[in-house]
């Protein structure tokens, strides 16, 4: 099957599944709204109670949108980092990029950036710089002549992640805790209903990052031949790497800014897609946008219904799935990846 045919088939299946899951998620939640009332709200009927309208349209719907965006962004960032490092374990949280972005966000909050579109834009900017610095540091630590050894890259990511987590702890300790309200909750990775302006910004950042990764995705395929092999086939390897890195870091930073550091989505989803669709990044990147969203939506729906009326952090769910998966990948794949 040609890559375009595979892409169309994958997108059709994933879009259908995502639509079904999103509809189902509208009916699930801790607030007691009956299915009939949900339908009444969605149908725009006047008989719908104002409370139900708020629950469905201002809480559940924006939260579903946030889950779809965050999951898609994380999965696309995972595909980008994996292609870039030629390493199936590379992913924003494993690489420490999420921790760098989180440090940026906490720092921005210390400087007083809290709410309002402009301030949120500043927050995303701080997150991006944090992600960029962390990613660059990991690369500098792990890079050897001829490539990025799998284990060294993972270790470098862990070390950089620990460093930025400690730096966050320092900030939280020296700054008046009240000013950083909810920061601990946020650090676990939580999806909440975002106000329309923030949702709009999230869409814009995700779209830009997605385009930065998708546009050079054919060149990203050729990078699998090694840098010299790619150069000899006419790929401007440095430019491609810069673009993909910027795109993946932006995606990871946006998720951290709007939902907190949610781990392992960028590991699980691309791997599952690669098994089903093969390693062609031109197919993987668009498919990851939908599949990542679907995965995180399901995880978030579980997070808010498993122990209702209380809620789990969605980051806890993804980590519970992701940690065993990471071990499996580490043990089964590393021998075959050339350093």
């Amino acid at each position, binding site marked *: 099957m040609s890559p375009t045919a595979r892409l169309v088939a994958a997108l059709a299946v994933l879009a259908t599944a995502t639509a079904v899951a999103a509809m189902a998620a509208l009916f699930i939640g801790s607030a007691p709204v009956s299915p009939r009332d949900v339908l009444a709200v969605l149908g725009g009927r006047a008989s719908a109670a104002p409370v139900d309208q708020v629950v469905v349209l201002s809480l559940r719907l924006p939260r579903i949108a946030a889950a779809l965006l965050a999951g898609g962004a994380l999965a696309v960032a995972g595909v980008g980092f994996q292609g870039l490092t030629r*390493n199936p374990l590379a992913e924003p949280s494993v690489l420490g990029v999420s921790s760098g972005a989180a440090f940026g966000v906490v720092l921005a909050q210390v400087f007083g950036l809290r709410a309002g579109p402009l301030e949120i834009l500043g927050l995303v900017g701080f997150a991006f710089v944090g992600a960029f610095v962390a990613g660059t540091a990991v690369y500098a630590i792990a890079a050897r002549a001829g490539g990025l050894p799998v284990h060294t890259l993972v270790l470098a990511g862990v070390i950089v992640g620990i460093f930025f987590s400690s730096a966050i702890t320092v900030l939280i300790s020296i700054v008046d805790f009240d000013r950083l309200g909810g920061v601990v909750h946020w650090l676990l990775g939580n999806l909440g209903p975002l106000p329309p302006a923030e949702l709009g910004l999230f869409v814009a950042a995700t779209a830009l990052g997605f385009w930065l990764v998708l546009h050079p995705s*054919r060149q990203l395929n050729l990078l699998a*031949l090694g840098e010299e*092999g790619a150069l000899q*086939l*006419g*790929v401007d390897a440095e430019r491609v790497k810069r673009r993909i890195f910027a795109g993946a870091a932006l995606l990871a930073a946006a998720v951290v800014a709007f939902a907190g550091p949610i781990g392992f989505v960028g590991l699980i989803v691309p791997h599952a897609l690669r098994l089903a669709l093969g390693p062609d990044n*031109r197919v993987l990147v668009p498919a990851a946008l939908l599949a990542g969203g679907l995965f995180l939506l399901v995880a978030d729906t579980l997070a808010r219904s498993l122990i209702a009326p209380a809620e789990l952090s969605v980051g806890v769910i993804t980590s519970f799935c992701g940690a065993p998966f990471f071990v499996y990948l580490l043990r089964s794949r590393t021998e075959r990846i*050339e350093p």
Partner: protein
Amino acid sequence: MTPLAEFRHVDFAYRASRAAAPRSARTAFALRDLSFTVEASEVFGIIGPNASGKTTLIRLLSRVLLPARGEILLDGRPLEQLTRAAVATQVAVVPQDVPQGFPYTVEELVLMGRFPHAPGRLFESAADRDHARQAMAQAGVADLAAERIDRLSGGERQRVILARALAQRARLLVLDEPTAHLDLRYQAECVGLLRRLNRDTGLGIVLVSHDLNLAAEVSDRLLLLAAGRAVRLGSPEAVLDDAVLEEVYGCRVLVDKHPASRRPTVQILWPYP
């Protein structure tokens, strides 16, 4: 007729601090005042001991590196003025192996050779698929199209890499140790294939090899490199001289003729204590 490739007094030295350079390259050897031409439809062999500059020469010819001094021309045009993609449509490099990190299929790998012909496209055209199919047929790997490259034998993978280079439809094919990992049968097949391509399609071939006998067998002319300099350039009979080889390689050798092909052969005179 314009030569396919021409080196004019090319100098190159690796900077010692180049962190990005592969390890083998960082041992800072260089090419010094190197001049030669590769003519159309010629098989041009490049031989020399380790660290004589063979790999550097391939990198210069494929524009991975640019010369410090001197000039390299492709089909009469300065290489520096060509984009990477333009170079890749004229020079196709066959590396010794490819990394197998991601499980691409044979067809996907061969299609990568079409990239330089339309770098702006996201997906290959129907014409690209035709070229890839032809290249796979030429290299004898058409049956393997749907196979994953990490599940192939060394000989099969070598032919797949050759198919990818053929899909580039370049006029000059540069082979880096094409028979390094191959057993006798595949070595023989490889030589047969190269001769056929050269005869039937007029493809120019630059063969870089440690294997003096292979180079002598297939090359029209040989270039002997030592420490980055051209020691000899000419017909295999002229280049493969006992005294010159003993000086360059630092061991005793015997140059003879292949009993069947009458091409020069080089045997090591194994030392006894």
